[in-house]
């Protein structure tokens, strides 16, 4: 825990350092050896047969992740905000929502929504003959709604902390200069809160990425489901899982890099 690097974060952000420092080269070499061993000593003959389906699965995963976290986050902002500012009844409502969603397993929610609510829908002949039925009988709307709600609840909690953590003086300054509540929120409070919550949000989005496979239980097929399929078909233990790990690693890498980029847009002085 030495102190040297902490003093000048603005001038030597980690990314500015070369990719080719000795220890990084070493790490990359280790990684290459692992890949090589995996490719050489393990069975990959099943790969071509599933290639197309894997690509489709990755696409499905990304679509689910993208929309559920964007819409979920848009919901999370008001959920976090009302818990800090009130009004009281809304704050309680938001708190209750977060507690219930965060307090129960995602699988259960998915299941209740799809098999519970979904089968209630099917008991109404009017609904069954309406233009909505083609959507309601499909699985993805339920999967999407469940994932989105879950993200909103978890991120609502994160945003609550972030909103509460913005220094009061900066909000006062905004108020003192006659900013309306909305302008202050849009220009000062929200950006400050988001910036401060970014590292946590990055983690939560990765978690969301890994929650998406659950939609396979209601017949929405993503990359995880395809890999399960491979495992069942071949009874191979590690190979499909390693490929899955690699795919998730790439997706996460992209996510993390994107968040790091956002974070570094505003330099902060660290101690």
């Amino acid at each position, binding site marked *: 825990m030495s102190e040297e690097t902490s003093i000048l974060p603005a001038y030597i952000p980690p990314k500015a350092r070369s990719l080719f420092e000795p220890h990084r080269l070493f790490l990359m070499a280790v990684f290459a050896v692992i890949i090589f061993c995996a490719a050489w000593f393990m069975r990959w003959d099943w790969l071509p047969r599933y290639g197309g389906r894997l690509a489709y699965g990755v696409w499905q995963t990304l679509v689910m992740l993208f929309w559920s976290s964007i819409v979920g986050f848009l919901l999370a902002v008001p959920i976090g905000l009302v818990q800090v500012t009130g009004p009281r009844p809304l704050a309680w409502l938001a708190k209750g929502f977060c507690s219930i969603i965060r307090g129960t397993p995602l699988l259960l929610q998915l299941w209740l929504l799809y098999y519970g609510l979904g089968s209630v829908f099917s008991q109404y002949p009017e609904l069954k003959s309406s233009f909505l039925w083609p959507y309601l009988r499909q*699985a993805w709307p339920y999967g999407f709604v469940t994932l989105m709600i879950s993200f909103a609840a978890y991120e609502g909690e994160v945003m609550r902390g972030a909103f509460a953590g913005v220094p009061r003086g900066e909000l006062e300054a905004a108020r003192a200069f006659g900013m309306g509540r909305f302008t202050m929120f849009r220009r000062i409070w929200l950006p400050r809160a988001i910036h401060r919550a970014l590292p946590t949000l990055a983690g939560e989005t990765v978690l969301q990425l890994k929650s998406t496979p659950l939609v396979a239980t209601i*017949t929405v097929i993503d990359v995880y489901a395809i890999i399960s399929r491979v495992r069942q078909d071949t009874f191979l233990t590690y190979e499909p899982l390693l490929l899955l790990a690699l795919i998730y690693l790439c997706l996460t890498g992209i996510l993390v890099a994107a968040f790091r980029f956002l974070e570094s847009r505003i330099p902060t002085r660290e101690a």
Partner: protein
Amino acid sequence: QAQEVKVGFAAEPYPPFTSPDASGKWVGWEVDFMDAICAEAKLKCVITPVAWDGIIPALTTKKIDMIIGSMSITDERLKTIDFSDKYYNTPTGVIGQKTDKFEATPAGLKGKIIGVQVSTIHQDYATKYFGPGAAEIKEYQTQDEANQDLAAGRVDAVQADSIALDAFLKSDAGKCCDLKGYVKDDPAILGQGVGVGLRKGEADLKTKINAAIKTIRSNGTYEKFSKKYFTFDVYGK
């Protein structure tokens, strides 16, 4: 002293083959089957429940020694693990809503949405024979979920093992539906039946098990405990 063998069971219940009761005891046809062959082969068998997802690695890392879990023998799987001879094989059926009249043939299922359990031989079969004509083939993680969706009207037909379907049709939820018939056999896909999963290279154990299966088939033990569960011969052709 008898050799101790850890038998892996799928921790998820699969009645009437394996399911735990509320006191934690495992019951079902496959439990009786295990008891019979272990007695025959003079093995001391210990039930070790492992979730389905972890059952193969548990076998390969020697946390268990064999798997009794309604595993169908296929060529693809034989590349990874070994199987004993088959110990049961049941026909494949198709069910649908009572109000909906159709047959379990490609023509009858044209334009229908068919539900199957993911990664089963039924999925492969449905994809090959019904896929071209059907509106959609939906993959479910468990058979129960497929059945529920049939009752809810979100799929038109479900193809599965006739025993599993039978259990469903007899239950309250299954009142909506009836059996539309058995599908035409295709051993290349529907396989060579269900066998005991074994690690590769344990020829000794495999020989013992195969011998035991043969014996209980011929001395009537097999028939005796099967009667408690089924009205027909689960061993199949």
